[in-house]
């Protein structure tokens, strides 16, 4: 079949009213006002509110949902017992757990605990489902990698000592009334 050209008629641009012109001027005025305030604000003692990232870091509020991590107890073991509830709760199916048996009292631990961070959407349902406070949303937000394989986080990479997650765990207890 021969290629045919069909001319599409576009409606000519219409200026519906003079109000749109006013809106442009109003927008420009807002921008200019901020520019002047930031340029000369220091005269009236105004502070910078930007952070010189990555030399400086912002301390996020405990409510921030960063990357999900596994809580590491003081004896070095994970708190997770591989019950599978986070895997079940996860709407994007980014968690994959294979349980195994240990001789310790908890009987069960995750032999494999993988989180596919290309799929995680930071909803925090895993944390909410966890009966052991073993998976929590950390403040870690720097999770870019050089390859797709680097986005698959294994158990060893996910373990974070409990002391560093204290604020989030306390926040969770206040939120869910645990």
């Amino acid at each position, binding site marked *: 079949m021969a290629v045919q050209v069909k001319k599409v008629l576009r409606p000519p641009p219409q200026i519906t009213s003079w109000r749109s012109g006013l809106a442009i001027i109003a927008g420009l005025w807002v921008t200019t006002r901020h520019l002047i305030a930031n340029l000369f604000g220091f005269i009236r003692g105004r502070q910078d509110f930007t952070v010189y990232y990555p030399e400086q870091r912002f301390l996020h509020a405990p409510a921030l949902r960063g990357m999900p991590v596994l809580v590491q107890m003081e004896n070095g073991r994970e708190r997770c*017992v591989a019950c599978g509830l986070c895997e*079940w709760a996860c709407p994007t199916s980014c968690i994959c757990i294979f*349980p195994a048996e240990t001789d310790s009292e908890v009987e069960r631990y995750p032999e494999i605990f993988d989180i596919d961070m290309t799929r995680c959407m930071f909803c925090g349902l895993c944390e909410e489902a966890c009966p052991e406070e073993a998976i929590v949303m950390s403040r870690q937000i720097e999770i870019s990698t050089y390859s797709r394989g680097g986005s698959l986080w294994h158990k060893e990479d996910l373990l974070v000592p409990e002391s560093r997650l204290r604020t989030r765990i306390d926040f969770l207890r206040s939120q869910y009334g645990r």
Partner: protein
Amino acid sequence: MENIVQIVVDGRTIAAPEGVPLLQAMLDAGIDVPHYCYHPKLSIDGSCRLCAVKIEGMPKLQIACNTQVRAGMLVHTDDEEAAQTRRGVLELLLLNHPLDCPICDKAGECWLQNYSVRFGSRRGRSVMPRRKLGKRLDIGERMLLDQERCILCRRCVRFCREITKTGELLIFNRGHRSVLDIGDSRLDNPYSMCTADICPVGALETRDFHHRLRVWFFTQTASVCPGCSNGCNIMVDECYGQIWRLFPRRNDAVNDTWMCDSGRLGYRFVNRPRLRHPLINESGAPSAATWSEALERAAGGLIRVRDTWGGSAIGALISPHLTTEENFRFGELLRALGAEKLAMAVPRGAADNFLIKAEKAANARGVRELGLVSGEDDGLNSLLQSVRAGRIKALYVCGEDLLRVIGAEQTAALLQPLEFVAVQTLRQIPEYARAAVAFPATSFAEKNGVFVNHAGRAQRIAVAVDPPPGWMSDGEIFTQLLNRIESRAERFSPEAVWSQIAAGNPRFAGLSLDRLGTLGAPLVDPENIGPQTVHTAPS
């Protein structure tokens, strides 16, 4: 003759035979009354007290399992008094239950979880510490016991006493100190893992399924156990493309609600490293080939032998593990080639007088009913003699049973002098290296079809694990070979082949796949066609 009477439950009139347990009558009518200790295949114990219902005219609540149906009973299950009793019973059961659901294998299919959510109160009032008892106790070769989780329903005790008649499990002490344990002997009977099925909580666990995947991730498929010719009805649990466990499905005509341990553990061959592509042997060592190459070579080899020595020089070993449909197609293929010597090697093993049968193959009866083999030994010795005498030049071997029946060395020696050998095998076996073509076989979990058990009952199996894309099942291989030999272009469809069997063989007459359903149906006895018992699915 049973006397059917009418009773009224919650304003609904139901009909039930007089004298059956009231609980069973209500369950059959679809009324979901909670219960732990009642089991339709065990005696009545009445120890859990959960099925208490109000019956008008009775002074107190009655447990429905130990009350017999009488005409005109007026029963209330939704009564406030009954609901309060259920809440109380559940609270008492949970007094000492460890609530270690995150590490319990039963979580997700636990009756204590389900009923606590539906009928229990959400809060425990006890401030006393829970009982500390044995956990993960080694009570048998295949079983573990967690005494803390036990709710003392005594189903397992009754199972060991009434079904296996071995009596290993017992309740020790009385009242609040009662504890489940083994007596003098360990729980090693051949049906021991059934106790884990009937345990309503996670007190009895199988070692095989201990701390493995969660039950809610499984896809369940109704199938038939391939372990022996009894054909116990099972469910297959699949996840991540492999089988994780088998457990029995109720069929009163075959296995009630039980299955043997070796059958239950017999799924592992499906997950083991398997032959996943055809092999062809051109230069003395087998090498991987594509499906069409292998089919061309197999068809070419069979046709060459037939044209040189005639069809009678082709022998075939039929597998009792393939479905009836596939073996029917194999029969057509062999007829098209003119093969005369057909045989079947059926591995044999231990048997008992309950479920375990000596023939360790699911569909040996099906092959015999199709008329493919005959004789006491299914034609095996006659075939072996012909091969050794050099009258057979080409052999088509399905399955690996030859190794189990005549031994590995004998098999290798048997295949060595043959002109052409084609095999269908689950694994790559060194004894089959001589074969010019080796096709990967399909296990029972990867195909649809019908097995006929030792008593002549046709039962359906279904795909539980999806085979890889481009895969050819055994029936498809036979059909493709037939296409190449007879210049046809057909595909293998188990349903179409089954209707062909049902139309042509009087033993299978009228047995449509719908008629077989999930519970199967006995084959037709052409000389004695009478009313046949149709077992309905339990509610």
